[in-house]
Every structure is written in C-alpha cells, then in structure tokens.
C-alpha cells in the first residue's frame, strides 16, 4: 500500500519533470541548442495562468483562461526565437546557452516584480484534495496530473506522427538543407517548435501549480528535468518523458528507504551512472553502430 502511494506521488512529480524535459528535447532537436530557461518557462506558464485565473488578479474562469495561456506562452516562445535567438544564429553553442541562462534570470525577475516573491497557490480545477481507501491516502491532484500528462503525450504523438507540421518539424531536425528542398519553411518551423515548447511548458506549469505552492524559484526544478532528459537520451521525445518518470519515482523511494539526504542526490547519481554506462541515454534513438 505504501509502495503504491509512493509510486503515484513519484509518477505525478515525474510527469512534471518529464514535460519540462520534453521542452528541452524539442528545442534541442529543432535547433541543436539547449534552452536552460525551460524550467523558468514552466514557472512563467504557471504564473500567467495564476494571473488570469486567481480572483485576486484577473479572475477569469479556468477553462476560458486556458486557451489564452496557451496563446500567450506559444506567442512568447515564437517571438523569443525570432527576436532573441535569431540574433545569435550561427554563433557557437555557448552563446545560445548563455542567452537562455540569462533569459531564466530575466523571467524570474519579471515574474517576481509582477506577482511578488511570496508562495501562492493556483485556483486549479485539478487541486482536488485527498482520497482515503483503507489506509491508503492518494492525492487526487497527483492522479489528475498523471492523466493530463497521458493525454498531452497522446496529443503530441498524434501531432508528430500525423500532422504536416509535426512531420516537417521532424524532417527539419534531421536535415535542414534537405527540408528546405522538400518545401519546408525551416525558420518558421523552428519558431513553431519554440511556440510548442512554450505551450508544453505552460501545461507543465499548470500541473506543477496544481500540486502545491508556486513561487518564482519554481523553475529550478528545470535542473532535475535536465537530468531526466539526459537519462532518457537527449533527442528522444519518449525518452524524455520516461526519464522524467524515472527521476520522479526515484525521489520518494530514496527519501523513504535510504538515509536522509540521499533523495536529493539520487537523480544525479543515476545521471552519472547512465552517463558512465550508457552515454547516449537509456532510450536513445542514435546508437553506436556495431562493427
């Protein structure tokens, strides 16, 4: 029973990590750069929702606010690509990394200025309280988070497998030059990938805020999500989600069964182990050719 409880809360955390990791991988595949602000995107998405939904701010009903949040975060991602990232286009990877780290600072500062630094809670329809089954206590929010992540994964799967734009994104990530000559507007598609990363971050943010308090430092879980992306194999979308779930599940189990403090380092210990023994990640798409 206890195991099931730990598993569900771990999976719920893992879903949030997984969705942030998905954002990392999306951007990496499209532009071969790592967006270190992805965690802060998540935090920003949560605050934009909070600003629209909570009665002390705009007070719009949640389901009306939701499409607005997606539009705002999608537009922000798209503009970011056009205005900021295209300025460093062709520069070394380091330039992009520094730009995105700086972006994280800017987002944290701006959010703190607008909504304050105190922890707040989002009026989310997913924050449902607990349910008791015998001696088992399950957070309904946790279960809701898992279900929403499943739906999101399904939608993304359909998008990448069956839509013209999803296929264009895959093509552009594998060979930009060839993609151009198949009639794919590569730059616009890259902007759309950033928009998609913004929307996925917004979903992650809403789920995160449904599980507990939110403050401008929430984006730091992006570091764990980064570890999750590497564990899953950077460049693999299902790998990113699974990596997130693994990190999420390890934490509560390490906290319960290992000496105090271990739960904090467990994800990174796993990261190091994966890098040592399977440097391409657990679910990598690219494998070294056997000779």
């Amino acid at each position: 029973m206890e195991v099931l409880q730990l598993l569900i809360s771990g999976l719920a955390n893992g879903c949030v990590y997984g969705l942030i990791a998905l954002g990392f991988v999306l951007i990496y595949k499209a532009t071969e750069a790592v967006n270190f602000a992805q965690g802060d995107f998540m935090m920003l998405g949560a605050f934009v929702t909070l600003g629209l939904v909570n009665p002390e701010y705009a007070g719009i009903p949640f389901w009306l606010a939701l499409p607005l949040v997606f539009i705002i975060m999608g537009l922000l991602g798209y503009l970011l690509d056009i205005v900021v990232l295209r300025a460093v286009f062709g520069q070394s990877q380091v330039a992009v990394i520094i730009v995105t780290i700086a972006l994280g600072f800017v987002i944290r500062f701006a959010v703190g200025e607008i909504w304050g630094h105190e922890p707040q809670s989002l009026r989310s329809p997913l924050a449902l309280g607990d349910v008791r089954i015998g001696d088992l206590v399950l957070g309904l929010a946790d279960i809701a988070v898992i279900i929403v992540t499943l739906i999101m994964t399904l939608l993304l799967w359909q998008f990448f497998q069956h839509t013209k734009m999803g296929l264009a994104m895959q093509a552009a990530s594998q060979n930009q030059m060839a993609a151009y000559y198949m009639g794919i507007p590569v730059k616009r598609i890259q902007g759309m990938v950033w928009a998609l990363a913004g929307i996925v971050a917004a979903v992650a943010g809403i789920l995160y805020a449904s599980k507990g308090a939110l403050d401008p430092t929430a984006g730091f879980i992006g570091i764990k999500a980064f570890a999750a992306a590497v564990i899953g194999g950077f460049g693999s979308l299902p790998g990113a989600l699974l990596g997130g779930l693994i990190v999420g599940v390890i934490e509560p189990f390490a906290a319960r069964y290992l000496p105090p403090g271990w739960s904090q380092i467990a994800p990174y210990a796993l990261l190091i182990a994966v890098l040592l023994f399977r440097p391409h990640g657990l679910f990598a798409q690219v494998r070294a050719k056997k000779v």
Partner: protein
Amino acid sequence: MSLLEIDSVTLKFGGVTAVNNLSMRVEEGQVFALVGPNGAGKSTVFNLISRFYTPVNGSITFDGKDVLKMAPHEVPNLGIARTFQNIELFHQATVLQNLLVGRHRHRQTNMIAQMLHLPSVRAEERAHRHAVEEVIDFLDLQPYRNSRIAGLPYGVRKVVELGRALASKPRLLLLDEPASGLSVEETQNMRWWIDDIRRQMGITVLMVEHDMGLVSKVCDRVLALADGAKLAEGTPAEVQSHPKVIEAYLGTNAVSKGGKVA
C-alpha cells in the same frame, strides 16, 4: 518559352566570380547536362536555381515565373526537385519515410483533421503511399523499404535520394552528379532510369556530371562551364570536340594533337 531560362546571371563571393554572366535555356522534355572542371561553378548554378544563393544580377524564370522572387522552401512548389552531390537524406528515418517527406508539398488536409486522423486524411495518406510505392517499384527499392538510411550503403542512398525527388512529382529534376561514387553496374542502372524519367514520366532533367560516357548516352544538350562562364554549348559530341573545352580539360597542347575529352 523555355521551361527554365537563366539570363546573364552573375554571382560573386567577395572578389571571386563564381558564375559569370551565364545564360542558358532548358527546354521541356530535354535532358541537359552541365559539365566542366572542378570549381567551374556547376553546383553553384544548382544552388542559384534552388535559391540558396541570390545572384548580383540576371534573372531566372521557370515556366514564366520569376524564381528569384521565391524563398528556398517555395521552389519545390514550382515543381523543381533536386538531389545533392553529397546526399542529403533524413538519416534517422526509413527509406519509406524519406520518400513520404518528398510528398510534403502535396499534403492538403488541415491540422485538426490530421490530429484526428479523419477518413479524408487517411484517404490522402493512401494516395501518397500509392505514389511512393510507384517510385519504389520504378527504382527497385522494395528490399530497403523499411531500412533506416543510416545503415544503407552509398549506392542505395543515392537511389533513395533520386526516389525522394521523384516522389514530389516534379516537372524539372536537378541531379547533382548522379553517377559519382557509383559502380559501373549502378551507373548503368542510373542511365536507364534517367532515360525512363524523361520518356515515361515526362520530367525534364538538368544534371551536373563528370562521367562523359553517361552524359553522351543520356543527354540531348550539354553546356560546358569553366571559371563560372560558358565555354561551349551543343550536342554532347559537339561540346566534347570543342577546342576550348579540350583546352580547359587537358591544356593547350592537347588541342594541336586533336585530342577529345573522354
């Protein structure tokens, strides 16, 4: 009006003139070859047509439309497809998937319908798959249909790239060195395919090729380039025996000895 008209096009990289006041016309239904020594500007002409470079002056029109007004991703929509000297495929995808990307410009259903995978989308997918299977049969790619590109030999990749270009149902096919790196047998196949592409599919072909044997067998018209400028134009035999061409390839002594470019 010719299908492809290039008029006094000049392209400079800094102080280097890569293409110098070049004019040429490719008629519908022709197989046209660009030949010339390395660095003559042959591939650069391809890159100009596919809008990778913008010329300093001159004009390029395809079927009366101004190509220079298009963005690179709009060129395929005119009905121009190309292959690359160094093969540009989607390496982590299968042969079938690569060919299906070639159908990209023909996809018409909207995104919501695609997400829901509605019957209209499925019908469209079946039509694309059908078109791709025709190409697979034409190029004998059946054994490789579901193989990943990353694991395929060079010769097969070359054919897959040709297939991807054909899958887009172009009117003009640009082939950048279709026979380079191929074995004698594979080159032979390439020759029959190019013949069939013209005769059965009615596609006009413009190619860059060093193998003069292949050029003289499949091409109606040849243009020789050197240092970005036109040296000679005519039938393969005319161009091969043109004194300026022999000079560019073999040096001045060869001309006096009555040599011929092999």
